[in-house]
């Protein structure tokens, strides 16, 4: 399958500041790609360059093998949903949605425009609101109008810049499902920018995590969560335990790691990819929900620790466990299947499936 959108070596500099650095990625038809990153990581700049609202310093953008790098935004034919919707306050909903259709050349017949507007408003479940003004609609409804307006002219690609940022949590998760439903129904190729990792995990086929203007990792949601390629990713997506370690030895496909502490307990970790250099600042990484705890687990036990804190979080209970008296490890258990109740000061064993642990620098 050929790539629909190709970004090749895209760079944007503002005077001396590099906002986006040598960014390359490919997007296939119907794919939902999320660019995720902390603020200032260059994700919005990247999106604006694709939309034509910013000119790249170097690099190339092409859609269906057509170079659009320096095309003005109105000649790109891409749909864009803005952070604060950017609905035209002086136009009725139907005129807002019809706007891109009225801009089309050659001109579309009015009847056709009316039909397309009615159809898309039905899809976003807003029929009956045609004659209202944006200010008469709720935030969620305005969001739907913005979506309808970006989709009505059947653009090959739709760009969304934190479209749900202004909504409250409940409404946001409802709209996420809504966006996903419409995206799948119309099979729209989408680039979605957000700083909300949960949103990225819910919506995306693939996620590109950006850091300092570069893509730190580009993969499916599952792979990024299960196999982060750096401690930055492991920390940015979800929660992780980071234990500073050094390599103490090797046994077949497993590395023996020594925790950098006085006692220097040993942990085993599967070897993946290239051998890390021993000088690297190495960290043993595992997610809290992958860690199981118990009393006297026998040969299954991978580490011993002492409960330092118990935090009840509703869905889960989080245990902060002190390892070697110097590091804190957290473990999460579903409240439904709590096997044992521990309290502060208890000595416990920790275990995990070694596939879920990783050595990162």
């Amino acid at each position, binding site marked *: 399958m050929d790539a629909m959108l190709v970004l090749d070596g895209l760079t944007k500099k503002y005077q001396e500041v590099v906002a986006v650095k040598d960014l390359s990625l490919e997007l296939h038809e119907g794919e939902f790609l999320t660019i995720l990153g902390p603020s200032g990581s260059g994700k919005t700049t990247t999106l604006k360059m694709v*939309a*034509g*609202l910013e000119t790249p310093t170097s690099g190339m953008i092409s859609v269906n093998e057509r170079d659009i790098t320096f095309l*003005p*935004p*109105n000649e*790109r*034919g*891409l*749909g*864009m949903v*803005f*952070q*604060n919707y*950017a609905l*035209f*306050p*002086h136009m009725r909903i139907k005129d807002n949605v019809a*706007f*891109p259709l009225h*801009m*089309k050349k050659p001109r579309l017949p009015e009847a056709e425009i009316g039909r397309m507007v009615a159809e898309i408003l039905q899809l976003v479940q807003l029929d009956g609101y045609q004659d209202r*003004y944006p*200010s008469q609609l709720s935030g969620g409804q305005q969001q739907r109008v913005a979506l309808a*307006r*970006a989709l009505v*002219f059947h653009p090959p690609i739709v*760009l969304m810049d934190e479209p749900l940022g202004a909504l409250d949590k409940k409404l946001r998760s409802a709209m996420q499902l809504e966006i996903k439903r419409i995206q799948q129904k119309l099979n729209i190729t989408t680039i979605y920018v957000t700083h909300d990792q949960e949103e990225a995990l819910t919506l995306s086929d693939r996620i590109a995590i950006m850091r300092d203007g570069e893509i730190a990792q580009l993969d499916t949601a599952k792979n990024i969560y299960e196999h982060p390629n750096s401690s930055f990713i492991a920390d940015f997506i979800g929660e992780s335990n980071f234990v500073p370690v050094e390599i103490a030895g090797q046994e077949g496909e497993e590395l023996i790691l020594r925790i950098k502490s006085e006692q220097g307990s040993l942990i085993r970790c599967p070897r993946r990819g290239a051998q890390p250099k021993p000088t690297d600042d190495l960290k043993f990484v595992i997610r809290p929900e992958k860690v199981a705890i118990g009393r006297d687990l026998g040969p299954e036990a991978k580490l011993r620790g002492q409960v330092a804190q118990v935090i009840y979080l509703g869905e889960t209970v989080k245990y902060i466990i002190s390892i070697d008296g110097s590091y804190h490890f957290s473990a999460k258990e579903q409240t439904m299947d709590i096997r044992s109740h521990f309290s502060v000061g208890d000595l416990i064993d920790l275990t995990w499936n070694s596939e879920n642990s990783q050595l990162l620098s």
Partner: protein
Amino acid sequence: MIFSQNAGSGRQREGASLPRRRSPWISSFAMILPSLILLMIFYFYPMMKLLPQSIYEDHAFTLQYFQHIFSEPVYIKTLLRTIWLCLATTAINFILGYPVAYLLSIVKSKTAGAIMTIILLSLWTSLLVRTYSWMVILQRTGVVNSFLLALGIVSEPVQIMYTPAAVLIGMVHILLPYMILPIYSVLRSIDKNLSLAAMSLGASRTKAFLRVTLPLSVPGIASGILLVFIQSLGFYVTPMLLGGAQTLVASGLIDRQIFTFLDWSFGSALGVILLLITVLFLGVFDRFFGMDSLQKRLV
């Protein structure tokens, strides 16, 4: 019109923030009271003293002064001249002012500050000083004529002073800030993403401006036009100094009737006509622009 709006918005804010329920009318009335008293003493009272003078002669009702105005072509001509000068001033100010306001709204704040200082500087300079400056520039031996003569465009000085052109130039210059400022304040409040959104949806830069930015700036244009037109109708110093007796406007005419001929009744009648023109303009304006509804829509 403007007062009732202020009172209305004040009332809403009050109602939302006060925990105690108090009649919203009383508090909003208290807020406008100082300005109301001021207007009563210095505006309504003199006007009420003046108006009867135009329709009473020895305690008997008469329309003779109004008849007098409409029977003398010279007065009608002066009134018409006043109206077209004001319309021209307003139109030219719009054409000159909108681009400046637009520029102000898109440049960096530092540049905008510099341009703004220039605009405000001219606003802060005394009206008299500015008008005299124009006299210096426009007179027979002034800058413009010296320039034209030196370039050989004309062989003898052109008469600019005391023509409608001189009055127009002076009025346009002095009233320009009143056009720029309200338009700028509205343009600045328009979300920049709106025109970007229009462009991303297929509109060219021009179309995005015409379909989005321009219609959204209508409230600013409306205030600018109102401010400039109404002020120019009553303009006195500038037309008197730059237009003199040859290009007389309504305010000059009234002044002459009252202070030269001591004919208070006739002067009052002219004043009433000028007031009626203003009210008529406001009415027509409100009808066509429907400013109230426009502003509501923008909130």
